[in-house]
């Protein structure tokens, strides 16, 4: 039963990832943004575990577990703590209004789907269809980073880009080798810790986490 519906379920989860990526793009409140990020991580965990089960790729279980621990538990927890400690404003401010951002998002999705089609044709994996969605998630997170003016949403965009990349690896080639996934996860975690330190310094200096304060260095 699950064997039969497995690939379809993966497609469903992939669509859910895309939906969550859009929800993050449209989100105005920082707490919901973190929760959405955790939800995206959880979807990624589910789909990776499902792929692992369907294809008997035992190393993917490791990758799924890594996602669960890092993206669903650790990072959202750190982010929540940071928000509480920093006591930042609750709103996400955008540089472009949200409907326009979403429109650009749709264009990016079409672009990603087109880009992924020739690659997906070569892939023999049962997840090949989802490669386009993975690419779209990467591009949407990219868009989120560009269009947000506060530091925390930018960082969440960065982390969610990592989600998209993990998903791309699973979709195209059943995941990267375990050593490398561990390395990437370690980098992300260390990066998050460094960013945490960084947030405090930015705030101590500017009393705000608005990165528009960080636009003084320009060409004269």
């Amino acid at each position, binding site marked *: 039963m699950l064997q039969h519906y497995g690939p379809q379920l993966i497609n469903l989860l992939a669509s859910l990832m895309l939906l969550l990526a859009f929800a993050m793009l449209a989100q105005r409140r920082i707490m919901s943004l973190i929760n959405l990020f955790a939800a995206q991580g959880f979807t990624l965990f589910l789909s990776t575990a499902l792929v692992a089960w369907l294809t008997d*790729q035992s190393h993917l279980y490791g990758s799924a577990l890594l996602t669960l621990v890092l993206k669903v538990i650790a990072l959202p927890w750190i982010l929540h703590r940071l928000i509480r400690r920093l006591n930042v404003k609750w709103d996400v401010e955008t540089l472009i209004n949200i409907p326009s951002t979403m429109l650009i998002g749709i264009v990016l999705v079409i672009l990603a789907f087109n880009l992924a089609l020739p690659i997906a044709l070569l892939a023999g994996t049962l997840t090949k269809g989802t490669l386009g969605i993975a690419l779209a998630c*990467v591009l949407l997170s990219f868009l989120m980073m560009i269009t947000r003016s506060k530091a925390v949403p930018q960082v969440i965009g960065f982390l969610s880009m990592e989600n998209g990349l993990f998903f791309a690896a699973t979709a195209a*080639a059943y995941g990267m080798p375990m050593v490398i996934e561990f390395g990437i996860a370690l*980098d992300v975690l260390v*990066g998050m810790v460094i960013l945490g330190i960084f947030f405090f310094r930015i705030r101590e200096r*500017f009393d705000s986490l608005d990165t528009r304060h960080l636009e003084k260095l320009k060409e004269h």
Partner: protein
Amino acid sequence: MPLEMLLLLASPLAGGLVLALTGHWRWAAEANAAFSALTFAAAVALVTRVVAEGPFEALQRQFFVDPLNVFLVALTAFVGMTTALFSRPYMRVERQHGRVSDGGMRLYHSMYQLFTFTMLLVLTTNNLGIMWVAMEAATLTTVLLVALYRSHASLEAAWKYFILCGVGIAQALLGTILVYFAAEKILGAGPDALLWTQLDTVKGQLDPAVLSIAFVFLLVGYGTKVGLVPLHNWLPDAHAEGPTPVSAVLSGLLLNVALYALIRFKVITDGALERPFASNLMMGFGLLSVAVAALFLSRQRDIKRMFAYSSVEHMGLITFAFGLGGPVASFAGLLHMTMHSLTKSAIFFAVGHATQKAGTQIMAEIRGLIRLSPTIGWGLTLGTVAILGLPPFGVFASEFLILTQAIARAPWAAPILLVSLGISFAAILGKVQPMVFGEPQLSLLSKSRLPYRPALLPVFAHLLLVLMFGLYMPPYLANWYRQAALLIG
């Protein structure tokens, strides 16, 4: 794993940990220099081994050494050591001036060693995935270094650096995933499918469509770290706002290492595509970087920013040379990589002391260095003369080779290169000349001496080496470069 290699990687890693745990500022600088010297000794031993025995792989093929990376390893370890020597008095002066706290000093020394470790890991690993991980780690270790002063500008520069390089490096990961996807078809799944030596043997069978898309992502990703226009935005800020030793290693080493990663992928991509797609892209981006950087040079007011733009220009030139390809152009590219790395770090050493003397980084306010401190003044003058490509320095030899190759094989590009080099020549010389030979402000003359004696040995050691390469290249070195150039193709 051979002992030299183990030592090469273990020394900076251990150094980073030891200095993080116990690095009191009074002796951390000495320890830092000692660890760097140990690393350099290991690198020298590694070089002699490779010269004697040829390329080899280690630890189940996860590490490998060939003429191309061993030359960069030696260069990295050498500049790492001299910069550690330079930073000893420099950082102490900064501490004295109250710009860095004691904790900051500890962070600096520890991160410096870890940064060296990540660069050496990028250079020696055979696994393209590990290469990515190490490259990202190199960004992470330097972000806090750039923000060391905690000033408005340095925080901004570090934030920009983190976000731009983070996004860029994420694109590179996507490219790496795509390469793995193509490789896994031929080599089978598992960590071995990302080994460069394996990929190199089967590059003809890799799918060209996937590889070309992958290379675009990789070029954007690693190109951001190389500082190629239009992805160079972080570079001048990070160079200008971080401590000067960090600027020196960023310019002299990190950019090289990022370019090295790009070259490895270029070899595979060109092999898979059987047409010079990757090469052409690199030529285009290189040329753009040279031209744009030259235009920006004349508009700079901050001395470190100006030399950062000069780094963009030279990295563009090197990228162009590798894009052009062929034994001579690749040879010239490698030579220029070495020359630029040595010269630019020497310049940053001199600039560091000069700005400490003058108390500012604004060029218009620095005047008459030759009278304030003849050695610093001469160091800066000679460094500038060298980086501008005047004979008899080595930069002249490499730039000359690149230009003749461009004229012979890409005549359309030669005028752009010549004009850009001319513009940057005028811009840099016009700004440095009054700084050194102008009339000093009286207030500066009466200022007391720096509390610690500046370390000028690294400056002149570098310049002497550059001079030597310009006048005479030892045959074994030339031979070594030739072999490395053959690998690049």
